[in-house]
């Protein structure tokens, strides 16, 4: 039976309802008694009309069309798709942690403020930074915060000539996007033949017009930037600050800390390193850690502890301001705090140990199939060059699509841009050896099939809810609203 692919609007039938308000007698003010005539809605919004069981089935059936960590392997590089403990969902659902209004007086939310304060302190210890703000709503929002802090720092010193931010060519897309959003000119520095930042090239580009260097370490190739201590010296000698993109933090917990490596500001991705669920793309959370020199500029509010009482401090004269409303993604913060408490310091360190073990194991296995252009070992992830596949008439994208038929989510593909036909593979620590072996065997099987008949692979997948989509049509004949297309 073909699945029912009707939209919720197409299942709608006038007169159906899936929810009922309590029965009570309320004063019957008419709309025109309450509102100006011309502000009263004329035509009802086209929301669906369904019974409760139909709504539940609609969304349950939609869920079945998704691949997720709970379904199977998800080795998406730089995304750290580790197991998201169910325990943390139960914790976040505790009524006394959930049913709290953001403007409740601080004395009525002491438990939550303590929880957030705990998380701030734990992140400081993990990162070696001097202070942490939990405000940013996502990694990119954390980057925006960090670069805004850097600008405030330079401005405060009266140093207005710094107009550039340096990023390596292997950086995440959010890095240059953030720098541009903060009004900086983005300058790219090439990687060297080892896949790490070319310090010589950096020295040529650095100067008193550079506000910051944004790095992730290990970098997106999964390699540790060995020259980090020299890089930090080059940055600081020239008055620039060093930004740490925490996307790849899962490799180094309990091993080395960004603060100790000389980074001045960083963001954490709680939805990566600290196991909070990605939820189809969010909400995440991107707390920012800073060194002392940036503390005066932190976003509002800051949670403080004074004589055993937790306070919300909005009086920060040099603050960069507010980044979003209220306290950040507090529902995500609860889960991350629960994770850190469950793991403990030694548990976090072993998470990094096994993340690196799993990545190196896969690397060693896949090295027999693909060229892995950089390094001989890796940290938590590595990047394979898929051009070997061209021998069999297929590309990285074909392999990625074929993997879907085997219940495996493909790696991040065609990123970083500096590797041809790139496949960026991050298995994470929570995967079993059995899963890793299955992944390697499956790739082998797909290549064998390609050798027999490349067209079957070029048109994969076959067993997924839909097959390859016509993206040209999607972008040319834009249809992103059910009704406006019907009205046309």
């Amino acid at each position: 039976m073909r699945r029912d692919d009707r939209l919720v609007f197409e299942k709608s039938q006038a007169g159906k309802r899936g929810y009922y308000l309590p029965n009570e007698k309320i004063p019957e003010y008419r709309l025109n008694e309450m509102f100006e005539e011309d502000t009263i809605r004329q035509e009802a919004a086209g929301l669906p009309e369904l019974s409760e069981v139909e709504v539940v089935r609609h969304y349950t059936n939609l869920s079945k069309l998704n691949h997720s960590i709970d379904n199977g392997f998800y080795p998406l590089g730089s995304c750290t798709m580790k197991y998201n403990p169910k325990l943390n969902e139960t914790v976040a659902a505790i009524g006394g942690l959930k049913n709290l209004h953001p403007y409740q007086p601080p004395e009525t939310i002491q438990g939550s403020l303590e929880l957030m304060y705990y998380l701030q302190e734990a992140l400081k210890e993990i990162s070696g930074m001097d202070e942490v703000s939990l405000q940013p709503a996502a990694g990119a929002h954390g980057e925006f915060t960090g670069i805004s802090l850097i600008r405030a720092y330079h401005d405060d010193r009266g140093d207005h000539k710094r107009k550039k931010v340096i990023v390596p060519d292997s950086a995440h897309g959010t890095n240059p996007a953030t720098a541009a959003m903060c009004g900086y000119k983005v300058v790219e520095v090439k990687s060297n033949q080892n896949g790490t930042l070319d310090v010589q090239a950096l020295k040529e580009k650095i100067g008193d017009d550079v506000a910051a260097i944004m790095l992730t370490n290990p970098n997106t190739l999964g390699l540790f930037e060995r020259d980090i201590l020299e890089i930090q010296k080059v940055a600081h000698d020239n008055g620039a600050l060093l930004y740490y993109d925490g996307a790849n933090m899962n490799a180094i917990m309990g091993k080395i800390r960004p603060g100790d490596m000389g980074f001045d500001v960083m963001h954490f991705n709680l939805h990566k390193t600290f196991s909070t669920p990605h939820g189809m793309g969010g909400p995440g959370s991107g707390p920012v850690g800073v060194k002392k020199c940036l503390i005066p500029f932190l976003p509002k509010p800051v949670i403080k502890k004074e004589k055993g009482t937790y306070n919300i401090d909005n009086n920060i004269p040099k603050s960069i301001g507010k980044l979003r409303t209220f306290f950040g993604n507090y529902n995500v913060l609860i889960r991350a705090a629960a994770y850190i408490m469950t793991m403990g310091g030694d548990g976090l360190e072993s998470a990094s140990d096994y993340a690196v073990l799993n990545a190196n194991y896969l690397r060693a296995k896949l090295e027999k199939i693909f060229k892995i252009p950089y390094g001989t070992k890796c940290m938590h992830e590595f990047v394979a060059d898929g051009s070997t596949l061209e021998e069999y008439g297929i590309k990285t994208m074909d392999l990625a699509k074929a993997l879907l038929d085997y219940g495996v989510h493909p790696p991040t593909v065609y990123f970083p841009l500096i590797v041809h036909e790139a496949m960026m593979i991050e298995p994470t620590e929570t995967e079993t050896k059995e899963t890793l072996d299955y992944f390697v065997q499956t790739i082998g099987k797909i290549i064998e099939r390609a050798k027999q008949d490349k067209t079957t692979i070029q048109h994969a997948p076959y067993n997924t809810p839909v097959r390859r989509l016509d993206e040209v049509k999607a972008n040319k004949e834009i249809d992103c609203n059910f009704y406006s297309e019907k009205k046309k």
Partner: protein
Amino acid sequence: MNQRGGKKLGKRYIPHTEDEIREMLNTIGVSNMKELFVELPSEKRVDCLRLKSGMAEADLMRKMLELSERNTNLENYSVFMGGGIYKHLIPYAIQSVVERGEFLTAYTPYQAEVSQGSLQMFYEFQTMIAELTGLEVANSSMYDGGTAAAEAMLMSCNVKRKNKYLVSKALHPEYIEVMKTYAKGPGIEIEGVDYDDQTGMLDLEDLKKKVDQDTAGVMVGYPNFFGVIENISRIRAINDKLLLGVSVNPLALSILEAPGKMGADIVTGEAQPFGGSLYLGGMSLGIFASKRKYIRKMPGRIIGQTVDEDGNRGFSMILQTREQHIRRGKATSNICSNHAHNALVASMYLSLVGKTGLKKIALNCARKAHYLAEKIDRMDRYSMRFNAPFFNEFTIDSQFDPDYIQEKMQKEKIMGPLPIGKITDRKDMQNLSLVAVTEANRMEEINFFAAKLEELL
């Protein structure tokens, strides 16, 4: 010396057996894990993290329950506190469906073939938001109402290639602060537009005065922070070139005319009222809709309908060339992770309550609010601060310190109203409180609250 000494490493959520570890190390060609970390400069290594040892789940749960008991849980409170986040009734069918792992533990739908659940849901969500706002296109979510308003400002300045932006002084104060933070990078000059002292509505004369050739657009609240309903058509009539941004409570749009129908170019807002739990305002959901002609300048993810190789209906991300992972330094915004899962909650909420249900809920809120407002306005020492129409929230002026009201109310298991002076530093607002009413407030609670307010006399 490693402070861990001989202590065994914690292994929570790590599935490896000792045999497997040995075999894996062998395959890699190292004799122990330490060899995998030799690239790290030894002089900067840490021995261990000074964090407590891991907790068993029973202990963790006990600890978290202890913390929760030090909070005032509003579940059994009458809540008259709003200011952007409201306690509404949440249909129970939502929770068990949205916490399915297939929704919760999926990533951004980069591989469309195995993400059709997310993608179709986003497409439906976009349609619902477009319908409510009266605009043609909506994205699949932003972080919250504040950042959505800030992104609307960036987009307006980008579309118009101008760098001055006007903001109603009656917009949510936190939204204005967020906009100011976002304005610094591109060097946008933000100017406030006054509101009328009697009505609380935007001062149209002041708007006229403040528009000049550098002005890209203006942002107003609908309802605004004081609960007052702006007349969007009249604002539009002042100037037809400005990009008119309207920041909404989307629940109100089931009974109030859609801003898009009254000339708004961009509509943003906070959709927590659509099934979102309070969570200190953390379960926020920014919405963002715009006229079709600006779609290429919009921030965030947009999902489109297409067909697959077999000609079957399917959905995928579109216009990705606007986004950071493709466009890098030239992207329309740096947003990547958004509030996708909260958009699922809102979609399911809107599907359950449906076309007529949403209107009933909004009407319930508005009627109860008007009933309470009339009651309060009749009391000697309270008065309505503004005389323009409102939706479910209104501002009262009291002869008491609003903190005193709040404190007394807490003793009666009532949270609110919100002392406005707390979130603005304006001296003339120190006696103002914002009263929010929703369908979660039963009539007897409303009467009880009114009686207690009167008792304060």
